[in-house]
């Protein structure tokens, strides 16, 4: 018998093992739901799968009588726009800050302590400030996400710049690179795959801040909907929304991973 550390599941077995916990959770839910519904048919806490499906159908394929919009897709679009623009802004901001801090020692001395401090501000604590200053529209919500994740991305990327071997930086100078050329030809191109890693790690916080902002002041969005129907204990809406948000997050994570592998072949570990 080989040691546990040397026993690798085959392809099929590995896949089956991965799926197993999901199936187990689903079975657990169905059983628990049936037990509760048998006791009280009006129970709202664990609605039957059929009930969830019919509610989801009306949200996703029928127009809302009040607004005339298909709520599920309107919510999805509103949320994706917010989180998408916040991620793009954070990525650009993080990149510029990291390059400045990582490459120019004077800029590091100037900005590094400030950035370290800003990164420690709990973003939700200044959410009211954002709403007061920026109003209740989109800007405040996007700003919350950016404030939440951009400093972390910037610090992470600045560390990555610091990890570049000193030999590379010296070599570039002996090839005649100016500071600017060093940034655009040596440091920046090596930072792109790191940025993708950093964005993947920030995705969880980004969703957290998005939903927090939407819960407090919004008229549409996935987080808004969840918090709106909460007062009716409408688990048949909340649960599919949560599953959908999770699915969106998983898909964007996968998308970023594939992008990294395709666009930055040099950064992939050798197989």
């Amino acid at each position: 018998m080989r040691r546990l550390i040397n026993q690798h599941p085959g392809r099929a077995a590995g896949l089956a093992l991965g799926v197993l916990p999901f199936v187990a959770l689903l079975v657990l839910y169905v059983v628990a739901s049936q037990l509760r519904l048998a006791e009280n048919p009006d129970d709202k806490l664990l609605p039957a799968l059929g009930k969830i499906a019919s509610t989801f159908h009306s949200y996703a394929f029928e127009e809302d009588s009040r607004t005339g919009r298909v709520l599920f897709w309107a919510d999805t679009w509103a949320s994706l726009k917010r989180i998408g623009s916040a991620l793009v802004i954070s990525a650009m901001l993080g990149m510029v800050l990291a390059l400045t801090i990582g490459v120019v020692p004077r800029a590091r001395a100037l900005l590094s302590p400030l950035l370290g401090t800003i990164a420690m501000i709990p973003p939700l604590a200044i959410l009211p400030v954002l709403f007061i200053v920026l109003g209740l529209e989109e800007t405040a919500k996007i700003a919350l996400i950016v404030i939440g994740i951009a400093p972390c991305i910037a610090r992470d990327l600045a560390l990555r710049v610091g990890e570049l071997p000193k030999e590379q930086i010296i070599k570039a100078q002996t090839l005649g690179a100016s500071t600017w050329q060093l940034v655009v030809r040596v440091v920046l191109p090596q930072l792109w795959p790191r940025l993708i890693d950093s964005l993947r790690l920030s995705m969880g916080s980004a969703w957290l801040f998005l939903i927090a902002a939407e819960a407090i002041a919004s008229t549409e969005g996935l987080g808004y909907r969840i918090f709106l129907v909460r007062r009716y204990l409408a688990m048949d809406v909340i649960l599919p929304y949560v599953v959908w948000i999770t699915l969106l997050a998983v898909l964007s994570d996968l998308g970023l991973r594939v992008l990294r592998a395709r666009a930055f072949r040099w950064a992939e570990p050798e197989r």
Partner: protein
Amino acid sequence: MATVSVRHVWKEYGSAVVLENVRLEIADHEFVTIVGASGCGKTTFLKMLLGMEQPTRGQILIDGVPIRPEPDPDRGVVFQRYSSFPHLTVLENVMLGLELRSSKLTGKLFGAARREARAASMAMLESVGLAHAADRYPAQLSGGMQQRMSIAQAVIRKPKILLLDEPFGALDPGVTADMHELILRLWEENRMTIFMVSHDIQESFQLGTRLLTFDKLRVDPQSPEAYGASVTYDMPLTRRPTRPHPLPA
């Protein structure tokens, strides 16, 4: 043309003296090999020639002019490791020096200028025997091939001085012999002055036209850092081998 004058150079870190009173006059087209125990300051000396570190006292001049206190294209370098750019292919690595020279804003060349730089780089790769690997990334190369690429990358900018910091230290003996041949050929073709730090004494005798050993002249057993190393032997090697002897297999 590149003569190097090292005038009374001292290097101290706080109270620790690493190098003391190094004085050297190096003629043009000299192949200087530097040996010494580890920690004797030979790498520090190379770093000062490169401009990575500044002498605490004294002066280093190239062709009578004090060196710039930072690395520049007059002084090329090949380190033992990490001196290639992992995000560029072998060809792009070699082309980089030409692109940086001609394109100040983007560091990239386009059109006819690019084709010209490409052709020059391919010729360089041909000359170091790497043309077949032009489109690979450095991580896909063996250690010897990576060093060939690093050398090509440095030489294509035609530096006056080439600094080699144990460039063959991590290579297999068979590969090393080929590398010796390559570096001697490039040294002849490009009329560079070469400084090479090595821990391999045989290699230093084979390649050099002048061999320096760094060691401490005085030792205070109570405080080993009180005195620094200096050049203890300065040997002109009259026998100028155009080819190194093949190593016994």
